[in-house]
């Protein structure tokens, strides 16, 4: 597990920074909630100030902002999904390609270790980082929920967290595949960040515009739409299936491509 240990150590600082920032934002946002519910009138005024299409885009028309979970779905979920995905793709897109960019791959692959093992340890490091970030998100949220004296349905909250985790892993798996296939680490980071942002943009657009529903299939953010999850109290099994298939195919592609890749430094 030498490569895994090394990757964990190298990424510890970045994981720590992301965790602290996300935790800070979550706690700050959740601390507003009690005041928010106290003054119903201000809240309604605030909401009516938003244009309808804006509310549709962010699911505000279907989420009850007056409940803690609704508040979470509207104010926090988009941050954990978006920022977490950015963290995931930045981590994964560098994971394999950086060895080639920094030409250290020649050292690594001249050691008695199979390529599959190299990828497996790197993949495991990516997954560990993502799981840790999500555990941090979950724990901080649970702490933040204590600001309000209101019970959160834990099962639904758990589904939201699992959905977020699944989405982070999906993006990471795609970025890892790109990292195995493409050469320039910087290009890979740009491409996979682009995928995340486009996916986010599509989820917003498909919410506003009628007739663009088919776009939801291209947006991972729509796959774990908090309004849907909260009202159905379940994850959409079709979307979960698609994410799992994308994860499996990407990881399989990463292994099989890298196994035969010509390492030209």
């Amino acid at each position, binding site marked *: 597990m*030498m490569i895994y240990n*090394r990757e964990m150590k*190298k990424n510890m600082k970045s994981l720590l920074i992301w965790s602290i920032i996300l935790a800070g934002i979550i706690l700050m946002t959740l601390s507003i909630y009690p005041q928010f519910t106290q003054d119903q009138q201000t809240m309604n005024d605030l909401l009516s100030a938003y244009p309808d299409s804006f509310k549709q885009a962010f699911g505000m028309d279907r989420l009850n902002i007056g409940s803690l979970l609704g508040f979470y779905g509207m104010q926090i979920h988009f941050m954990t999904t978006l920022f977490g995905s950015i963290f995931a793709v930045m981590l994964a897109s560098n994971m394999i390609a950086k060895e080639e960019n*920094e*030409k*250290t791959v*020649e*050292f690594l*692959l*001249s*050691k*008695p*270790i*199979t390529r599959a093992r190299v990828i497996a340890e790197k993949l495991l490091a990516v997954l560990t980082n993502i799981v840790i970030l999500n555990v941090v998100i979950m724990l901080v949220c649970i702490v933040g929920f204590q600001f309000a004296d209101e019970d959160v349905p834990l099962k639904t909250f758990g589904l939201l967290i699992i959905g977020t985790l699944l989405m982070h892993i999906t993006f990471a798996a795609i970025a890892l595949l790109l990292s195995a296939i493409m050469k320039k680490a910087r290009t890979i980071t740009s491409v996979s960040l682009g995928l995340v942002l486009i996916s986010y943009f599509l989820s917003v657009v498909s919410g506003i515009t009628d007739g663009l529903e088919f776009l939801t299939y291209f947006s991972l953010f729509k796959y774990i739409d908090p309004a849907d999850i909260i009202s159905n109290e379940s994850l959409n099994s079709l979307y979960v299936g698609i994410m799992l298939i994308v994860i499996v195919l990407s990881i399989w592609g990463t292994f099989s491509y890298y196994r*035969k890749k*010509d*390492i*030209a*430094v």
Partner: protein
Amino acid sequence: MEAVELKNLSKFYKKSRGIENVSLTIHEGEIFGFIGPNGAGKSTTIRTLLNLLQPTGGTATIFGKDIVSDSKEIKKIVGYLPSEVHYYDDMKAIDLLQYSAKFHHYKNTNRIYELAEKLQLDLNRKMEDLSFGNRKKVGIIQAILHEPKLLILDEPTGGLDPLMQNTFFELISKEREKGATIFFSSHILSEVQKMCDRVAIIKDGKLVTVEKVETLIKNSLKKISLTIENGEDVQFPFEGVKDKQTHDKNTTFLYRGDMNVLLNHLATLDIIDVLIQEPSLDEVFMHYYE
């Protein structure tokens, strides 16, 4: 068992030529040189042997193990020094070497300090602060640390000053005494001449010849320098004369062929002075590249 055996090994890239049908055998315990100009396919051959590149044709074995399917096993007994040494910048030299030793499950890490002392390398510097030559030293230690049965060295002396080169050759000789086989590529011929038992010459991706160093130097070519009265345009009506250069009365050329034919012809000329030498390997080398 042979240390290394290549059978029609080929590697074509999508766009450019790599190597074509290279067949050669390196015996156990031998120091085997691999020479050719830049771009001839030396590094391609070495990288294919290490399975960094997938061969497109032919096969090769190292100590009887297939380079593709048994790559991991092969790397346990191989030490590799790439031509350009690149390591993790955030590591100190000592960290990198210990990291490398762990891959080989090599426990005798005192040897790192012994080797570093011989090569005068400061192990506590970060890789990114090391000069090219010092990084090469880390590479050398990394390659020979685990006492491999086969050392593959790609242009090993580049970046080392002449004194260090001598230390390096001493280290290599010591490994050889312990029974290691050494395969090293170079375009610096004097070091090949100094070290190797046999030499393979590669040109444009194809193996030109494999010869003993002595054979290559002694038997194949003579360098002839003549000073001839009225000899501005001396002609040799037979095969085997190469690189003829005439300057006033002086004519120099390389000769490969029957010495009697040459000497009989020289006897007919009005010779002031004659010098017959063994050519340097550089000249031998040039000859193969004509």
